[in-house]
C-alpha cells in the first residue's frame, strides 16, 4: 500500500515535470518581446482604476466557514459509511443524531439568512396609472 502512495508522489512529480518541460520548450521557441503596454493588466482597453488587491466581499468568508463545517462532518462520516453494513441499527441511530445536530446548525444558518446571496434589487411596486 505504501508503494501505491509512492506512485502517487511520482505522478505529482511527473505532472510538474511535464509542465516545466512544456514551458522550457516554449521558452526556447516562443518570442519574448515585452513592452509596457503589453504588460498592463487587462481592463477592457482602459487604464485600470485603483488596485485589485482589495478586501473582497465578506460574504465569501461566510460561505467558506459553512463549507468547512460541512466538509469536516462529511469526512467524519466516511469511516462510518464504510463500516455501516457491519454495525447496523446502532450506526444508523448514532449518525442520525450526529447529522441532526449539524442540520440544526444548517437550519440556523438558513434562518439567519447567511445562505442568501446578494440579489438585484427588484422594484416590486408596480406603478399604475397609464392606460395607453
Amino acid at each position: 500500500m505504501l508503494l501505491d502512495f509512492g506512485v502517487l508522489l511520482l505522478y505529482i512529480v511527473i505532472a510538474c515535470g511535464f509542465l516545466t518541460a512544456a514551458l522550457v520548450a516554449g521558452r526556447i521557441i516562443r518570442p519574448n518581446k515585452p513592452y509596457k503596454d503589453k504588460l498592463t493588466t487587462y481592463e477592457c482597453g482602459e487604464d485600470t482604476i485603483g488596485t485589485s488587491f482589495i478586501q473582497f466581499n465578506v460574504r465569501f468568508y461566510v460561505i467558506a466557514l459553512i463549507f468547512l463545517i460541512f466538509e469536516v462532518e462529511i469526512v467524519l462520516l466516511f469511516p462510518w459509511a464504510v463500516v455501516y453494513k457491519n454495525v447496523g441499527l446502532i450506526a444508523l441511530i448514532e449518525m442520525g443524531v450526529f447529522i441532526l445536530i449539524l442540520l440544526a446548525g444548517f437550519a440556523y444558518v438558513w434562518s439567519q439568512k447567511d445562505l442568501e446571496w446578494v440579489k438585484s434589487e427588484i422594484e416590486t411596486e408596480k406603478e399604475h396609472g397609464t392606460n395607453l
Partner: protein
Amino acid sequence: MKEFIEHLYNELEFLEGLPFIIPFIIGSFILAFIIINFIAVFAGVCTYIERKVAARIQARVGPYMVGPHGILQWLADALKLLFKEDTVPEKADKLLFKLAPFIVFAGSFACWVALPLAPAFSPARLNIGILYIIAFGSSVILGILMAGWASSSKWALFGAMRSAAQIVSYEVPTGLTILAMLLITGTLDMHNTIAQINLDGTISGGQSQGLPFPLNYFSTNADNFSAGMFSWYIFRYPPFTFIAFIIIYICALAETNRVPFDIPEAESELVSGYHTEYSGMRFSFFFLSEYANMFVFSAIITTLFLGGWLPPFNITGSLLAPACGIILYMLVKGKTTDPANRFIAFCTGAGIGIFLGVLSGDKNYWFADYLGIQSLRFIEGLFWFFTKSFGLVILMMWLRWTIPRYRVDQLMELCWKKLTPLAFINLFCIGILEWLYK
C-alpha cells in the same frame, strides 16, 4: 498495476536479483508518462470533439482545414499555444501567478492515479481511493484562487472568487451523495467498488440482497442469470439512487465550471474569468486540467453509479439490442420518411432488445468470456469504462451548447437550499433502506 509488475518480475529471468522496487518504479514511471501524454492528447481531442459537437448543434461545420475533417486541429492549436508569447502582467504577484497552473494541473492529474480503468488495473490501488480523489480534486480551487488573485486583474479576481465560492459550495452535496453511495458499496477502494459486483447483481463481501424487486425474481430462479446493467449501483435503490446520480452530475457540472454553472469564466460577464491574464502555454494548462477534470468527475460517476468497467449487458442482450432495433426500423421505414422518427424507432427497438437481453439470463457476461480469451477482458473493460465516462463528458458538452448560464445567487441557492437538503434526505433514505435490506 502492482500486480502486473509483480507478475512480470516473477516471469522475467533477467530481473532476478534486482530488488522489486526498481522495476516497480520504472514501470510506474512509464505508465505515468503514458497517462500524462494520454491526458494531454485526450484534452486536445476533447477540444476538437467539443468544437465538432458545438458545430453540429449550431448547424455549422466546425474545424475542417487541418487534416481530414479538421481532426488535427487540436494539434495545430497546441503548437500555436506553444509558440505564443508568455506575458506576465507587471502588477501581478509573479510567483503565485506562475505557480497556479502547476497546482491546478498537478491536482487534476493526480486524481487519475486512483481511477479503476479496467479489471485489475488502476495506476495505484489506494484503499482510500474515493476520499483521496475528493481531496485532490479540491486542490484545483487553490490553483484557481491563486491565479485569480495573483493576476491583479479585476475580472480575474471576480472569476476566482466566484469559482472558489462555487466549487466549495458544491463540494457539500457531492460529498453527501458519495457518502450515500458508500453506504451501499461499503468500501473506499474504487477498485473494489466494481470488483465486488457479482454476475447476479449481488455484492460479495457485504450481505446485500442483490437486485431490486422485479429483477430479483429472475435472479433467484435462474442459476445462470447475469444481471447486466441492473447490477450497477444506480439501480440499487430506485428512485433514491437515481436522485443521487442527478445530484452528483449537477455537482460535477458545477465543480468543473461547465455550463450552466460556468459563471467563473462567464465570457459575457467576466471576459474570461480567472485566466484572463494567462497566455500561451500557461493558459493551456488551465484548459487541459479543465478537460482532465471533466473526465475525472465522469469517471467517479461511472464507478459509483454506472458499474465502472462492467459491460452494460450480456452477450445475448448485446445481440438482441441491434436485432430488435433493426426489426422496428424496418417496420417503420415504409411508413415515415423523417429520419428522426426512424432513429427513434431504432432506439426503441434497441431498448426493448436490451431489456429482453437482460432478462434472458445468459451467463456470458463478458464478451471475452464468451470467446474464451481472458486477456481480452482488460481491453473490453477499458473500452466500457471509457465509453461510459466519455458519454458523460459528451453530455456535458451537449448541455453546454444548449442552455444559458445561471446567475451567481441562483447557483448558490440551488446548491445550499435545494441540493444540500435533498442530498441529506437521500442519505437518510438510502441508509434506512440499506439497513432494512441488509
